[in-house]
């Protein structure tokens, strides 16, 4: 199960498992982002390289206009994946 919803202040909330089977659904949502947005990982249990790539492509596109994704509430396992991938250096993590 993987869900994307929108909360207060246009915050994007991810829930469940962001794996390779969810890439099309995620791309559709992230391709529509054009300004700096916060992504709340509080209810996200898992992410693989497929999910990380969707975030990376979005971050690259947004950075061209000085915008970015800001990530918050990553669980410790997801923080570790970010660290291994070096994504802690290219995303602002709250």
């Amino acid at each position, binding site marked *: 199960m993987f869900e994307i919803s929108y909360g207060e202040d246009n915050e994007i909330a991810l829930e469940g498992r962001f794996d*390779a089977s969810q890439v099309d659904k995620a791309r559709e949502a992230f391709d529509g982002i054009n300004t700096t947005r916060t992504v709340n990982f509080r209810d996200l249990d*898992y992410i*693989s*390289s497929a999910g990380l790539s969707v975030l990376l*492509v979005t*971050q690259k596109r947004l*950075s061209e206009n000085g915008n970015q994704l800001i990530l918050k509430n990553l669980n410790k396992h997801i923080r570790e*994946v970010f660290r*291994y991938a*070096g994504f802690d250096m290219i995303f602002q993590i709250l």
Partner: protein
Amino acid sequence: MKKKFQRDFSSLEQMCSFIQSFVHRNGLNEEIRFAIELVVEELFTNMLKYCPGCMGDIEIGLSKRKNEIVLTVKDFNSQPFDPTQAADYDATVPLSKRPTGKLGIHLIKKYMDDINCEYKNNMNKLTLTKILRKTHVRN
């Protein structure tokens, strides 16, 4: 324990249940579950991507020895696939130059302690080992 999975992204959900069952039976915790799920997904999706014409199932095996977990992945009737030969991914490259691919193999190498690949009779057999630490055992 081992199980064959259909060569389709929709198999990922069944793989999670299989891994969950292994982790539970062996008294392991969420940290190791996350690592195994990620490595299995990365291997499985690479096998799907790089052999689009392949039709056979992929077998995943998991066993626990005294202080290590052994993961075997068998891809029958496939092309050679050896993640140890993949170019290194530089996780220090800045955003503008960061490649959007090759991350999966990099993560496999980060999470596992040993990777062995064999290709024989059209079958890829990957054997990966993860050394267990005290932090991997359920309290």
